[in-house]
């Protein structure tokens, strides 16, 4: 099955909507709870990243009996050095974002920790694509 969700850059009040929808779907599918937890944590981080850094984005979700692929495609500034961004504590967040409890520089490392497979590609000035893959059989 295929689903799409829109993300609005800068609007933190809506951040987490898509993650909640994905969570509900995985509960309906009776996916193992530990896998649901990891999927939702990784997706939520990714969703908040788009809200915090990009102008807009789309989440493409493909789910079947064996796996879920969550692809977040944003239009935004891009990440100049992905390797550096993957390091714990590295952050470019503005003080406004930090005040809201985001931007501690744990986003990407957390996503990597929770996802079975994480792919990031980015083009400076254009945007970033994050792909989270999860397998349902542990």
């Amino acid at each position: 099955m295929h689903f799409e969700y829109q993300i609005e850059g800068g609007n933190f009040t809506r951040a987490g909507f898509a993650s909640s929808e994905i969570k509900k779907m995985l509960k309906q599918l009776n996916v193992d709870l530990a896998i649901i937890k990891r999927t939702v944590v990784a997706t939520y981080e990714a969703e908040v990243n788009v809200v915090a850094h990009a102008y807009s984005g789309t989440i493409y979700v493909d789910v079947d009996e064996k796996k879920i692929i969550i692809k977040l495609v944003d239009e935004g500034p891009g990440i100049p050095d992905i390797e550096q961004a993957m390091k714990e504590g590295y952050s470019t967040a503005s003080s406004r974002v930090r005040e809201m409890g985001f931007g501690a520089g744990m986003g990407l490392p957390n996503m990597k920790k929770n996802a079975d497979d994480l792919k990031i590609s980015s083009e400076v000035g254009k945007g970033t694509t994050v792909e989270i893959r999860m397998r349902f059989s542990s």
Partner: protein
Amino acid sequence: MSTKYFHHALKFRKEVCIGCSHCMNVCPTQAIRIKGGKAELMDNYCVDCGKCYRACPVGAIIVEQDDFNQIFRYKQRVALIPSVLMAQFPEKVSLTQVSSVLMELGFSHVYEVEHGAEVLKDQMARYINERNNDMPLMSTFCPAIVRLIQVRFPTLTENLILLKAPLDVSASYYNQMLLDEGHDAEDIGIFYITPCAAKIAAVKSPVGQEDSSITGVINMDFIFNKVYTAVKQGFIGKNTCHIPRLDPMKSYAVTWSATNGEAACMPGRTLAIDEISNVIEFLEQLENKEKHDIDFLELRACDESCAGGILTSSNRFYAVERLRKRAADAEKKRKEGLIPYNTAGPIVEYSGFLQENIEIGRIQPRSMDKLDEDIGEAMKKMKRVHELMDTLPYVDCGLCGSPKCSSLAEDIVQGHASITQCIYVQKRMEQEGSMSAAESMEIMQMIWGSEKFEQKNKAKEIKQ
């Protein structure tokens, strides 16, 4: 879905139900359907919060209780009363007075439930400090919340604090004390005067515990009416001087069951949330996180916590004010030296024994969102749900007998309902010529009962 996980204290009386669907519309877990003009409860979805009980305009929903006379099967008849019971009465009605009426009714012992908090408080604080969790630890005080987490937020069950509630601590204490006094176990009957349905359900099918020391449950409204009538009629207890164990409670114990009662006593950053919809909103967000600043979460199903229980009689805000006043007065008396500050009640003499037995077993998640045990089947059903949702109008009118379009779609894939129950679908089918007005009427009667349509033959006149 055939396994019944929970005992429910809320019972629907079909003969009284008028099928008005008020209960269905307020149920926070979408556990109610209308069939044949009567409300039906889907047992495994219900968490016994009691919202339906409050919404019912005709008293068709009742809270099952044990027969009062069963207390006489026991030689030692203990009434465990929560501080919320005292808070139902005007201040001039004293604890001694209430207790003496309870003795007159047949109890041989009266004990205040929240004494259990005097043993539990430090154990809970230690539990939180020892774990130093990334996620907030959640109290198991409110049984409706424990069930809500089991069915709706299964990934959060691991954050529940696996310690007994004050009620169970007090019951264990009193039971053990009577045994130590030489009474036989079968002679001891411990009865809890409950402000809500969830506590009854929890006593009848305890979660995380083998069994409960509590013998039975008596509804608070029943006791309140008995006691208040006696008080109003000027009853002066003969037994007043024989009431045992009415030790002054610690101030924090008096307000333990009020909102922020537990949270105020716990270490670190705490949060107290009452009313089940507020709790659901918060837990929905919490499930997305793996780290959170809050260390302890106090969650209660009722607005104003236990003072807002469905079996209470007094206004909940007023009751909370009385609880706080009682706590403040006790604190003042302690400061003035009228009550000894550090003299612990007799429950503390048993703290060693109680602490040894304070832990409860793991609380199992029982997710009720799953469409099927098998992921392949669940997938097929989910596809079907989404297809159906494209047909349904997204107005959640409830005329199909399900509370929401999404619940109708799920009921259809589970084989409990038909798409033709949707009034919008019926209208479209009528227009397409695939359904007659008679067929449409038949379906509506099947859902709402024929009575609702019978006397309405004047509809045409009303229209003019």
